[in-house]
């Protein structure tokens, strides 16, 4: 009897995600799919609005990474106001934006480590879910939990100082920034009372990398063999090949490390990236046009970024990068669980970048905005915590937006997330007559490595947690489990 198993996580106001696993008559996995309901109406919503509103408007998209959308839209508007394609801002304008971006990355990566990764590391992925969670960490490892909260708070305060406020920040404007950092703000971040200063943040970020490495050394079989599959990898890199989360050129490598997109200007990304529509998913499937729809899909995010870049331009993170790369003999890393390792190295890099920027006198400059000859089209890209984020706009003679196209990190990772789920489903569901907690958790772990955005633009009471439903061949539900 063929069956369909549905894992249905969170429902929000306009969307939700679910996993369907199709079993054949012999209980073998025939097919598995991750469905994420992506709200696409926003691209129509901004049409008709004046272009200078975009950096603030786009923060309505997402309650978890509004800074990434704010900065990507601002970068696109830089092009439109004639401030160049990423290298035309004043030093103060660019460095304040970078400080905002690395502050966002630091608090986001910290949250992922504390909330999703550390429970698995500290308690093991097979531990009781009632313990293996963020509150379990607080109960059993209070020092680590308090560290994570202070790291989050530090990153949030960097955002507040650069973006102006926590909700709907206004810091980045077309052509630059609307404020620089005061002496008091800079000194507070550099020399604030322990632990809220950057040196403590760097030491804690280093400790988090060490924690992962210790877990890895004791659990190599699980970490190295969970959801491993060959993938292409795409990200921005600095023109000299360095890791750069704010600006650069687009580079992609295949699973063996061969460059398949060689440092191209992202202003014409549409010549290189296509978006395929599939009838079973609301979310598009991006691919490299030079490779084609079938094999041109790619991974974005921390794993991809450390596969595409040549080096990391801060000393502590570079040292960790060298160890990380040596583990795969310099070849691209295709192990899904190593996403956590890569993320923690990036977090260390973000902390080091914050210190470097705070010590740069340009961060307190007064020349904030650049403008030039206006054009009617602009593209803004950056590396959001979860991966490459594309914003593309066209305006008319009346300065109104007439076209917007956004490719968010979760969309870029659509195919690799499906591959990860399929890989895990085949290894744990095959031949099993029942859904167990452990099977559900394995699928969750695979998805959580990517931390996809499940329509998080709104939050309201009344949401539903994880649900697993099992259907028989006629489509009738024969089992439902909720978490």
């Amino acid at each position, binding site marked *: 009897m063929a069956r369909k198993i549905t894992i249905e*996580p*969170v429902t929000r*106001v*306009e969307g939700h995600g679910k996993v369907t696993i199709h079993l054949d008559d012999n209980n073998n996995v025939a097919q598995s799919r991750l469905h994420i309901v992506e709200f696409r*109406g*926003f691209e129509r*919503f901004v049409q008709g609005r004046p272009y200078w509103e975009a950096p603030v*408007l786009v*923060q*309505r998209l997402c*309650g*978890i990474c*509004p800074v990434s959308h704010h900065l990507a839209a601002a970068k696109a508007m830089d092009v439109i106001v004639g401030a160049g394609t990423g290298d035309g801002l004043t030093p103060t304008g660019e460095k304040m934006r970078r400080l905002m971006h690395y502050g966002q990355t630091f608090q*986001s990566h910290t*949250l*992922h480590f*504390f*909330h*999703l990764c550390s429970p698995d590391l500290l308690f093991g992925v097979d531990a009781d*879910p*009632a313990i293996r*969670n*963020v*509150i*379990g960490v*607080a*109960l059993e490892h*209070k020092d680590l*939990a*308090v560290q*994570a*909260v*202070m790291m*989050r*708070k530090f990153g*949030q305060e960097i955002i507040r100082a650069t973006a102006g406020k*926590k*909700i*709907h920040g206004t810091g980045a404007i077309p052509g630059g920034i609307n404020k620089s950092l005061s002496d008091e703000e800079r000194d507070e971040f550099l020399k604030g009372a322990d632990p809220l200063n950057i040196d403590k943040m760097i030491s804690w970020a280093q400790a988090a990398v060490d924690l992962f490495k210790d877990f890895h050394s004791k659990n190599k079989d699980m970490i190295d063999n969970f959801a491993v599959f060959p993938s292409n990898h795409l990200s921005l890199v600095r023109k000299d090949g360095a890791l750069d989360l704010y600006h650069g050129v687009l580079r992609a490598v295949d699973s063996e490390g061969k460059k398949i997109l060689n440092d191209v200007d992202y202003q014409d990304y549409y010549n290189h990236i296509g978006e395929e529509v599939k009838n079973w998913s609301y979310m598009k499937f991006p691919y490299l046009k030079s490779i084609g729809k079938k094999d041109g899909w790619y991974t974005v995010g921390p794993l991809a970024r450390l596969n595409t870049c040549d080096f990391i331009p801060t000393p502590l993170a570079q040292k960790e990068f060298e160890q990380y790369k040596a583990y795969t003999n310099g070849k691209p890393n295709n192990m899904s669980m190593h996403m956590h390792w890569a993320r923690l190295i990036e977090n260390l890099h973000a902390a080091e970048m914050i210190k470097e920027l705070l010590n740069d006198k340009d961060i307190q400059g007064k020349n904030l905005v650049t403008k030039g000859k206006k054009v009617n089209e602009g593209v803004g890209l950056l590396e959001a915590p979860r991966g490459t984020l594309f914003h593309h706009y066209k305006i008319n003679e009346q300065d109104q937006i007439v076209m917007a196209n956004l490719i968010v990190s979760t969309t870029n990772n659509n195919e690799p997330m499906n591959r990860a789920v399929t890989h895990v489903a085949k290894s744990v569901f095959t031949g099993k007559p029942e859904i167990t907690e452990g099977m559900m958790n394995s699928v*969750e772990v695979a998805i*959580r490595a990517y*931390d*996809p*955005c*499940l329509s*998080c*633009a*709104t*939050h*309201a*009471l*009344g949401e539903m*947690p*994880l649900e697993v439903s099992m259907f028989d061949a006629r489509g009738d539900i024969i089992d439902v489990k909720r*978490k």
Partner: protein
Amino acid sequence: MRNRVLVYGYGNPGRQDDGLGPALAALIERERLAGVVTDSNYQLQVEDALAVSESDTVIFVDAAVSGEEPFSFTELEPANEITFTTHSVSPASVLALCHEMYGIAARAYVLAIRGYGWEFMEKLTPVAEKNLEQAYQFLKDKISDIISASDTMTLN
């Protein structure tokens, strides 16, 4: 010095009635009540346990997609409510984190204001506006009661 009351409104003001929480927090902030602090964010997160630990009483204010009109007000107990992603933490989990990390059991309430529209607009629906006004009047009285009760306990 500890705060007497923290009013924490959360939600996305760019999504119509999802902004009810931050809107009420802003109204309370304008009152400049002694011992009362306010905060707002898109969603609750783990670091909010620190803010809760610094207050005797916390009132979480959120929009509700269903339930009582114009609002409901309920006392909250700490609970280990696990979410699938990093994208939000429940008020009960924030309380639990506060208790585990800082050893503080703050008294907490949820004020859930009924909302109706969730589109890309920075404007409440007319009915939600009315619900907000009623919740605002209720909360001012409730805060006054909480502070009076606290003063009485201190005197005793």
